[in-house]
């Protein structure tokens, strides 16, 4: 590195901000005290020489895996040494150690241990939990198979009970049934919780979870009957040994089936679980984490792109004048500022979901499952909505950095490949949207049949009940004031109601024409996804607008209000078709919306750098030469490039091997 001086452009940007970035940081962290603690933990990691290493971009995949394992081992030890036990604090620590990347023990810590806690009997906990806690057992969670993902009932792995020996015999009967993708399965784990179809007394009892040892303790060699390995290189996730697992007549004792709920007795009698809704809890939790992750990943990309756009100068705006900062171009603002607003919106949505989950999981522990269906539907949709948007947004940020965004030194390629699989894992996004749609249609039908619905879908109560014809009808008229977030929430509400009603009616029309429910659903699914998206969009705008009133500092509230307006109006300008067709906004209003978006771009411009500073990413965590806090981009790009593996020798060996002989021959 070089240059302790801050780049003059960035200095000027920061001096011109109209608010104090720290105050906004406190809001994002959930209070000044939490910001302090986060930074304390950050410093613990960043100042620890054990966690320093070469830039991962220059390492091979095997080296990156090895480095991650090294850090993970130390991380577990140090977390205990420092006595860090709060889930948020563990998350921070881990995130700083691995700089926002996944790591090989993720599944052990995030799935194996929690599953033992929630689904193992006390006897099983005695046998497995402490060894796993002490990392004598490292486990993973093997659900997905090569041929089967989101649709769980399709899994093919079998566990057949043999009462003679009181064992389960595990088998991967086909190629498609090979377990595929679980993190940490390839090389790291010696145990796996395996999901398999349970067969006992000649009957299939559906999917159940089994604790399966896969590698020999001591030598770490695969056990007889187990074929296990790494699934090969992926788009990112270089640190993780996503693995495959094939089982051939592999026997485990009866006591290795997780039996807190369902049980198989020694003679093979199957005892049913009391409720199957409880397993939703974990899924809801993980999906809610993805919403927060969407916010953070997009924030990181925005930080990089906006700082770089303040440092980069290009072309001319006025003839004869010096090249302007690219952040002064309207097209650049139009790419970046709506994403900045989106990042803030998603932060608040993430915080809301987390809070709601905590509240409801309290109720669940007391046996009250009434709010679970709505929470499940909401997190499914928001997981899809936010991850799709963030995914596209990260790419937009990268492209806004021109050619240099494409270099790994920008850090954005890494953010992208780390984040993008969340569109698929923990429930493929389209499938998630359709789950939300199922809930919306159900709620709509309840309203039509005279019941009232509550929660985020309560706007459906306002729909007139006598409309039964399948044609579209204009939405409830709302008077929209485009300068007022509250009024814009109403507009989004009307739009969602209109699309939910349209999808429900189209579905009904299909049902009237055809026999099968599934066919009708499939033929309406494009409409249904649109309805879900509109519902989620409404929820995001609503939560953002609601947040404004909680902000006490006037200057901070003012900038957040600008961002909220930008988020809502930009959203309308991208979906003008819906708002026009629903009759919520007129042509003239749409023109005003577009005009106001442009005005807001110019307003947000003044605070753009301060607004990304508020995300408060440490340079080490950001991992970007373009996004450095001090803005000394070009010097450091050169320093970075010199470390490239191709530069290790002055003359590359391929010169002697290929170039020279060719020149001699020609």
């Amino acid at each position, binding site marked *: 590195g070089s240059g302790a001086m801050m780049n003059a452009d960035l200095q000027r940007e920061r001096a011109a901000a109209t608010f104090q970035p720290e105050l906004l940081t406190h809001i994002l962290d959930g209070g000044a005290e939490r910001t302090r603690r986060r930074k304390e933990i950050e410093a613990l990691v960043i100042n620890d020489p054990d966690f320093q290493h070469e830039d991962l971009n220059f390492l091979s995949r*095997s080296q990156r895996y090895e480095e991650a394992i090294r850090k993970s081992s130390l991380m577990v030890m140090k977390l205990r040494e420092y006595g860090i036990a709060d889930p948020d604090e563990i998350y921070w620590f881990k995130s700083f150690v691995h700089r926002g990347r996944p790591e090989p023990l993720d599944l052990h810590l995030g799935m194996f241990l929690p599953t033992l806690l929630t689904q193992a009997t006390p006897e099983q906990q005695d046998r497995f939990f402490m060894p796993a806690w*002490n990392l004598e057992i490292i486990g993973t969670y093997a659900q997905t198979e090569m041929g089967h993902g989101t649709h769980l009932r399709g899994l093919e792995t079998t566990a057949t009970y043999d009462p003679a020996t009181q064992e389960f015999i595990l088998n991967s009967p086909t190629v498609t049934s090979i377990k595929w993708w679980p993190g940490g399965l390839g090389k790291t784990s010696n145990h796996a919780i395996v999901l398999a179809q349970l067969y006992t007394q000649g009957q299939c009892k559906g999917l159940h979870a089994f604790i399966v040892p896969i590698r020999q303790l001591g030598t770490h060699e695969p056990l007889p009957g187990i074929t296990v390995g790494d699934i090969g290189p992926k788009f990112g996730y270089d640190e993780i040994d996503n693995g*495959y697992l094939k089982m051939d007549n592999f026997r485990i004792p009866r006591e290795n089936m997780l039996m807190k709920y369902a049980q198989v007795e020694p003679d093979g009698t199957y005892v049913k679980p009391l409720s199957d809704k409880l397993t939703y809890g974990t899924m809801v939790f993980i999906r809610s984490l993805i919403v927060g992750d969407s916010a953070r990943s997009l924030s990181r990309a925005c930080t990089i792109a906006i700082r770089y756009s303040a440092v980069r100068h290009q072309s001319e705006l006025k003839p004869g004048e010096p090249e302007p900062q690219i952040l002064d171009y309207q097209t650049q603002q139009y790419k970046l500022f709506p994403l900045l607003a989106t990042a803030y919106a998603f932060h608040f949505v993430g915080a809301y979901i987390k809070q709601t989950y905590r509240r409801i999981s309290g109720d669940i522990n007391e046996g009250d499952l009434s709010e679970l269906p709505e929470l499940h539907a909401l997190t499914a949709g928001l997981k899809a909505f936010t991850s799709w948007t963030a995914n596209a947004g990260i790419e937009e940020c990268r492209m806004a950095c021109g050619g240099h965004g494409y270099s*790994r030194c920008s850090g954005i390629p890494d953010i992208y490949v780390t984040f993008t699989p969340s569109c698929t894992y923990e429930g493929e996004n*389209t499938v998630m949207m359709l789950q939300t749609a199922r809930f919306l249609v159900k709620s709509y039908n309840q309203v039509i049949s005279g019941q009232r619905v509550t929660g985020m879908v309560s706007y459906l109560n306002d729909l007139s009940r006598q409309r039964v014809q399948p044609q579209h009808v204009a939405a409830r008229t709302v008077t929209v004031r485009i300068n007022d977030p509250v009024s814009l929430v109403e507009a989004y509400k009307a739009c969602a109601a209109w699309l939910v009603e349209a999808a429900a009616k189209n579905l009904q029309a299909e049902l009237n024409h055809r026999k099968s429910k599934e066919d009708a659903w499939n033929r309406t699914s494009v409409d249904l996804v649109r309805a879900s998206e509109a519902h989620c969009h409404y929820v995001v705008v609503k939560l953002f607008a609601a947040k404004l009133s909680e902000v006490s500092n006037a200057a901070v509230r003012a900038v957040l209000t600008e961002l909220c307006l930008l988020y809502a109006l930009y959203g309308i300008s991208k979906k*003008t078709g*819906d708002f026009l067709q629903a009759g919520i906004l007129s042509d003239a209003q749409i023109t005003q919306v577009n005009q106001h978006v442009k005005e807001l771009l110019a307003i947000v411009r003044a605070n753009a750098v301060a607004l990304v500073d508020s995300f408060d990413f440490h340079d080490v965590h950001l991992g970007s030469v373009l996004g450095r806090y001090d803005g000394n981009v070009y010097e450091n790009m050169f320093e970075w490039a010199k470390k490239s593996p191709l*530069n290790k020798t002055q003359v590359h060996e*391929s010169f002697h091997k290929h170039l020279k002989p060719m020149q001699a021959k020609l």
Partner: protein
Amino acid sequence: SVNPDIASERQTASFSVEKLTARLDGGAEQTRMRRAVVEAIECDPEFSRENQYFQSQNERYEAAVRKATHLQKKMREMGWTEDGPEYKYIYRALSGDVAFLLHRIFMRSISVLGSDEQIAKWIPLASQYRLIGSYAQTELGHGTYLQGLETTAVFDSSTQEFILNTPKISAMKWWPGDMGRSATHTVAFAQLYIHGKCYGVHPFIVQIRSLQDHSLCPGITAGDIGPKMNFEHSDNGYLMLQNVRVPRENMLSKFCEVQPDGTYVRRGSQQINYFTMTTVRISLISDEVITPLMKACTIAIRYSVVRRQSKLKPGEQEAKILDYQTQQEKLLPQLAAVYAFHFINDYLQELFNRAYREIQRKNFDTLPELHASSSGFKALVSQHCTSGVEICLRACGGHGYSLLSGLPSLYTKIIASCIYEGENTILLLQTARFLIKCFMAASSGQPVPPSVTYLAAVKPGKCPAKNKLDFLSPDIYTEAFEHTAARLISSTAAELQDLVQSGVKKHDAWNRCTVQLAQAAKAHCHYITVKNFAETVERLETEAGIQKIMKHLCDLFALHGIFSNAGIFLHDGYLSGAQMDMVTASYLDLLAVIRKDAVPLVDAFDFTDKCLNSALGSYDGHVYQRLYEWAQKSPTNTQRSPAYERYLKPLLHNTLSKL
């Protein structure tokens, strides 16, 4: 044997795949030649890409150099030449995974910008690979905006040399391919100074590495710029020049020359420079943009008829995922688009050939239209195809993220095309400038180029469609696109004028309208693409069902365009809400129709399995077996990692404290 799930798709094709392939190639004879070239390349193990996904940057680079040198031998053996008809097929067969691509640009720039003597001196050396060239334009701090380059070349009349310098870090040459490790020479662009006066950016031939031992020449700092999202095979480089002297004769001087006494002489038209840029843009659309989307569609669609997930009907087998409407909605519009773009590429080639003939006759009148079209279509097509490839990737569920699917590398490569050879937003604004100019000319009754005559007759109106079948009429939807493009261009022109009349400076007014201008340029290109597709369909022979299926694809491309940009069609009431519902209904109906021919439609692209290099997209549909076999070859499985002994073992044995 072929997976029955994919075999059954082929039995019901409504058209002849072989005939469509020939149509795409431009004739059966072309198809034959292409297959012969591909066959010759693929049966040579030196060109194998089998282990590519497992290789490091260093290994990829070395393989690319090895292939490039081997290719020279192969070409002599086969009697292929660089300007022969086979050449483009060679590139396709190698998937561009070969070194010395910039060497060709080096040669081309000398041919175009060099004097006859320069051509006579350098081209033979380059074609015999006595030297390896690169092309150094972009700098660390400067990309698309050429005038901003900071490298300097100062003429020293006492020694008859130019002294080249990199005055500051942001002036360092950055990104040029083949320059990091391979090149011995480069064409470097620098600001020319004579007796203290700046004459703007000019090209200079600079030697950077020794022809004997490949070491860097005095005053040269050069190296690789480090890992990127893709192009691991290419040594994109940096170059710093410190008082590097080159003889006066090394400035490429077809258009301007510095005489021994320092007199600067300009000759001929500079417009030809534009023509070179245009040539590069047009050629990349086909090779770098359309081909990757064709491959991605092939992989995703074949996989979608093999992959089964959930049940559509209780009691039945799990359904092929291509039977889900949402999956069709992801993939089939990409398929339609790639055909639309294939035909727009033909249109551009035609435009290009016409302009080239005119230029030979010293008539440069067609250049503005050609330049605007190549810019706009490069932007539209690369943006569309890039997002198309990503959609294909994510339509393959988890397996799409495996490098073995082939999709991640297609994606990370195609995305670069949105930036190089002109950043897309800037290109759209160039097209917009042309459109606004033409609109003003047309409004005042002056003649305008043929592709924009529609701007002369902008008038309010309503779409005449009465039912959803009306929207399957090309006239109806082409007019809707035309109307919308014209409206967006005229309203933006009006706003520009209003701003200027209200006292806003011209450049400021322009910047304030750039979001709309870019949208208007896109709408124009979208309109021309629809119109060209519809006209192409009309010209197709009706035999073998090709015209019929192409008509469906054209309809789908157009209606998907309206459906996903509904706002701009509804905005001035050209389409009513009820008509938009008809568009949606027709669009969704088409998905089910095209679904039946989806696999034959990608088979027609005629990629070999080796060319696709995908575990998911092979012709026989044996996805899972292949994925499993390939994964086992991964070095993570075949080589022993020190991670267990070093870290895992102490971890598992609780001896961490000894670390």
